[in-house]
C-alpha cells in the first residue's frame, strides 16, 4: 500500500480502516481504564468483564435486552452522526427524543381505542418523528437565520423539552394513581410485538429495532448516494463554497438539523412506546441516550455502519452492567465510566495516532538498523 499524505502532512499507512483502528484503540483504552477502576476498588477486572459481557449476551433474554437498549442509541447516535456529517453538533438529541416520546405517548393514549393497530403505530411513529424534527427545527432556524450556535441552542431546548414533558405528562396524561408517570399505553399501541418478544422471551425488544435499522439504511443512502446528501455535506464541509455554488445554505442547515431531530424523535417513540409503555417524570436529568448518542456517533466515526456497531457495543455494556453488579457487586457506574473514557480517547484520537506513529517509526528504524548491521557483516 502506498503511504498517503493527509492534510496535516503526516504519512498515513492505513487509509480507509484507520478511523476504525482509532475507534478500536479507544475501546481498548476505555476497557483498560475500566479495568483500572475495578482494580482501584479491589476487584478482579477479569471477573468484572466476564460478567459484564455475560450480562449482555448470556441468553436470548439478555441478547434481546441488549438489542432493546441499543435501539434508541442507534437512533440518537445516527442523529448526532448525521448532524456531524453536515457540519452541525447536535447536543440536543435528548430534548428531541423527549418531544418525540411525549408526542408518541400522547398519540397512543389518545387514539389507542380508535384506530386499528397498523394505522395507530404509523401515527405514533410519524408523530414522534415530526415532533423531534420540529423541535430540532427551532435550533436549525436559529442557526440559519440568526447565527445562534446550535450547541447552546440545543442545550437550552433540552431543558425546555424536559420541563415541557414534565408538565405536559402531568397536566394531560397523568396516571390518576401516580403523579410520577403517564398512564400506561395499551398493548395495541405498543411497538412491542408478541412474535418478537417470543423470540427473545423476557426482553423488551420491540419493533423500534427494525425502525432504527430502516432509518440507518435510509440515512446511509441519503448521505452517500443522493443529491440531498451531497448538498448537505457540502454545506457542512464548507458553507461558503456551498453558497458560492448556489446551494441554499440556510435551507441545508435547517434541513440537516430537522432530519437529525426526526431521528432522535423516533428514538423517543421506540423508547417510551416500545421499551417502556409510559413516560416517567420523576427524574431530574435528561434521558441518557442524548449524551450517549454523541458517544455512539463519535465511536462509530459518524458513519451509519459504525454507529450500528457502537450502539450495540454500548447497549451491551448498559444492559450487562446490572448482571455484573448483581454477581460481583462492582458498581454499575463502571459501564458509564468505560463509555466516557472511550469517548475521551476517541476525541483524543491524535494521541493514539501519535503513539502508533512513534511505535511504527521505532520499529522501522530498528528494522533499518538491523538490515544495516546485516549489511556490515
Amino acid at each position, binding site marked *: 500500500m502506498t503511504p498517503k*499524505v493527509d492534510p496535516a502532512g503526516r504519512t498515513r499507512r492505513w487509509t480507509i480502516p484507520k478511523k476504525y483502528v482509532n475507534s478500536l484503540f479507544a475501546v481498548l483504552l476505555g476497557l483498560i481504564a475500566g479495568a483500572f477502576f475495578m482494580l482501584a476498588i479491589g476487584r478482579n477486572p477479569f471477573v468484572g468483564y466476564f460478567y459484564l459481557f455475560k450480562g449482555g449476551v448470556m441468553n436470548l433474554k439478555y441478547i434481546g435486552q441488549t438489542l432493546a437498549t441499543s435501539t434508541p442509541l442507534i437512533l440518537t447516535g445516527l442523529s448526532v452522526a448525521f448532524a456531524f456529517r453536515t457540519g452541525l453538533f447536535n447536543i440536543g438529541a435528548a430534548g428531541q427524543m423527549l418531544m418525540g416520546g411525549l408526542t408518541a405517548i400522547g398519540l397512543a393514549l389518545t387514539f389507542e381505542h380508535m384506530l386499528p393497530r397498523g394505522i395507530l403505530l404509523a401515527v405514533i411513529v410519524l408523530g414522534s418523528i415530526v415532533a423531534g424534527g420540529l423541535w430540532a427545527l427551532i435550533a436549525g432556524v436559529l442557526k440559519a437565520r440568526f447565527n445562534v450556535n446550535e450547541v447552546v441552542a440545543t442545550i437550552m431546548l433540552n431543558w425546555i423539552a424536559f420541563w415541557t414533558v414534565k408538565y405536559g405528562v402531568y397536566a394531560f396524561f397523568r396516571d390518576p394513581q401516580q403523579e410520577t408517570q403517564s398512564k400506561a399505553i395499551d398493548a395495541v399501541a405498543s411497538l412491542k410485538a408478541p412474535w418478537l418478544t417470543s423470540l427473545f422471551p423476557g426482553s423488551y425488544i420491540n419493533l423500534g429495532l427494525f425502525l432504527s435499522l430502516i432509518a440507518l439504511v435510509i440515512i446511509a443512502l441519503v448521505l452517500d448516494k*443522493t443529491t440531498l446528501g*451531497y*448538498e448537505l455535506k*457540502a454545506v457542512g464541509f*464548507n458553507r*461558503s*463554497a456551498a*453558497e458560492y*455554488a448556489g446551494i441554499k445554505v440556510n435551507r441545508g442547515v435547517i434541513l440537516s438539523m430537522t432530519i437529525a431531530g426526526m431521528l432522535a424523535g423516533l428514538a423517543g417513540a421506540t423508547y417510551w412506546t416500545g421499551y417502556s409503555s409510559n413516560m416517567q417524570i420523576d427524574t431530574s436529568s435528561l434521558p441518557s441516550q442524548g449524551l450517549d448518542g454523541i458517544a455512539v456517533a463519535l465511536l462509530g466515526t459518524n458513519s451509519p455502519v459504525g454507529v450500528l456497531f457502537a450502539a450495540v457495543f454500548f447497549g451491551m455494556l448498559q444492559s450487562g452492567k446490572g448482571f455484573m453488579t448483581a454477581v460481583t457487586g462492582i458498581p454499575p457506574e463502571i459501564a458509564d465510566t468505560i463509555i466516557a473514557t472511550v469517548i475521551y480517547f476517541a476525541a483524543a484520537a491524535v494521541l493514539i495516532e501519535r503513539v502508533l506513529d512513534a511505535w511504527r517509526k521505532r520499529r522501522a528504524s530498528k528494522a533499518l538498523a538491523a538490515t544495516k548491521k546485516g549489511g556490515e557483516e
Partner: protein
Amino acid sequence: MENIVEMRNIRKEFPGIVANDNVSIELRKGEVHALLGENGAGKSTLMSILFGLYQPEQGEIFIRGKKVRITDPNVANELGIGMVHQHFKLVHNFTVTQNIILGRESKRFGFVVDEKSASRRIRALSERYALNVNPDAKIEDISVGMQQRVEILKMLYRDAEALIFDEPTSVLTPQEIHELMKIMRNLIDEGKSIILITHKLREIKEIADRCTVLRRGRVIGTVDVASTTEARMAEMMVGREVSFKVDKKPAVPGDVVLKIEGLNVLSARKVLGLTDFSLEVRAGEIVGVAGVDGNGQSELVEAVTGMRSVESGTIRLRGRDITKQGVRERIREGIAHIPEDRHKHGLVLDYTVQENMILETYDQKPFSNHGLLDFPEIRKYAECIVEAFDVRAGEGVDSLARSLSGGNQQKAIVGREIELDPDLLVAVQPTRGLDVGAIEYIHKRLVEQRDSGKAVLLVSLELDEILNLSDRIVVVSHGALIGDVQADETDENEVGLMMTGIRKGESA
C-alpha cells in the same frame, strides 16, 4: 561592512518537502536585502527560522558575528530581530498600544500593565519615524496600511535592528507603497537593516541594495541590485526566460452580455460598498476591473454572481433582468465564476476532485437522476476536465481537493467553470498565489474564452495582470466607477492614479 545577520547552510524540511536546502544568506548593517523567489520557494520559511518560529534541521545563525540559537520569537526579539509577517499578527479588538506591548508589557507595581506610558512611548516613536499612527485606535478601525505601520512600530518598540518584511506591499495601494518605501529609507537612515521579501522586481530595483534569489528551497545567487536587470532576476527566479506579456489578438467585441445599471450594494459592514455603479461587458472582450482592495470589487462580484442582494439598480444578462435571481439560477443563465478565494469559495476541500467538479451541476442530468447521484457519469466528466486542464493529483479524480497543490486546485476550478460553457465568465484574482507557469496557462485559457466569443469580467488587484490581459479597463474607487479606458491606450501610471480616486484628466 559588518554582517548583522548571517544564516549558514540552513535546512528545513516539512513532511514531503524540503523548504530550505542549504540556504545561506547575510544581511549587512544598513542595507536593504531583497529575497526573491516563486511561491513556495522557501522565503517565508527562511525568515520564520530567523525569527524563531521554526527550528532548522541543520545550519547555523550568527547575529553580529555571534553564533545563536533562536528557539522562539522572544529570543529573536532579544537579539534585535523583528518581523512584519505576510499575514499581520494583530489582535483585532485590541488597541494599537496593546498590540505593540503584547508580550513586552511595561508594568506598574510589577503586574499592572502600564498602557499610558507605553502609549506615550509609541506616539514618540511614531513621530520619529513619521509613521502617523494613533496609539489608542483599535486595530479593526484602521486601514491595512496603518496596520502595517503598527507592525513596524511593534519592531521598533522592541528595539529591533534587523527588520524583516514579508511581502509588505502586496496589500498596499501604490501610494501606500510609496509611503512604505520612504519609511524604509528612514529606517535605514536610523541605522536599521532590512530584509525585504517581495515578488515585485520593480520594488527591488527601487529600494534594495542586494538581492538573494531562491528557487525550490535553494539559493540561486545573490546579486547587486544596481548592476542587475529585472529580466535577469526574473530568469534566476524561474529558471528560464519569462515573457511578461500575454499573447493575444485584438478583441472583436460583440453584443452586450452583462449590463449593470445604477447598482447600489451594501457591503458586509452594512455601508454602501458600490454606489450608482454602471458597467457593460460585451461578448468577445475581457473587461478588467482595477482598484485597490476593498473599493467595491467584492460587492460587484457578489452582486453579479448573486451571492449578495442589491439595494437598487439592475443587472441584465443578455438583456434579461437577473437582479432578483439566486446564485444557482444565474449559473443556469450562463454566469460562471472563478472565485477570489479558492479555499473559502472555490472548493469543498474535503470532497474529492470529482465531487468538486459537479459542485454547481450535481442536481442535473447526467450527474443525477431523481435525486440519486450517478457516480460513473460524474467520474467520466471529472476525468475529462482533469485531462483537459492538466490538473495533476496523486490519485486522479479520487484525490481529496485538499491534497492538491494551489496551482492544481486553481486549474481545477478554472476547468470546472469553463466547462460550464458560460456566456459570462467572472474571474477574480484568477492567478493569485500561483507560479509563473500556472499563470501563463490560465491567462491563455481566459484569452481563449474571449476569442470564442464569451464575455470575461476580470477582477484583479495585480495591476500588471489587468494591464496585460484586459481589452478594456474600468477602475473602481470607493465603490464608484471612476474610469473606463481601452487597455492599449493607457498605462500603469494613469490607472494607478485613478485607483487612488483621481479621475482621468483631473490633476492630483
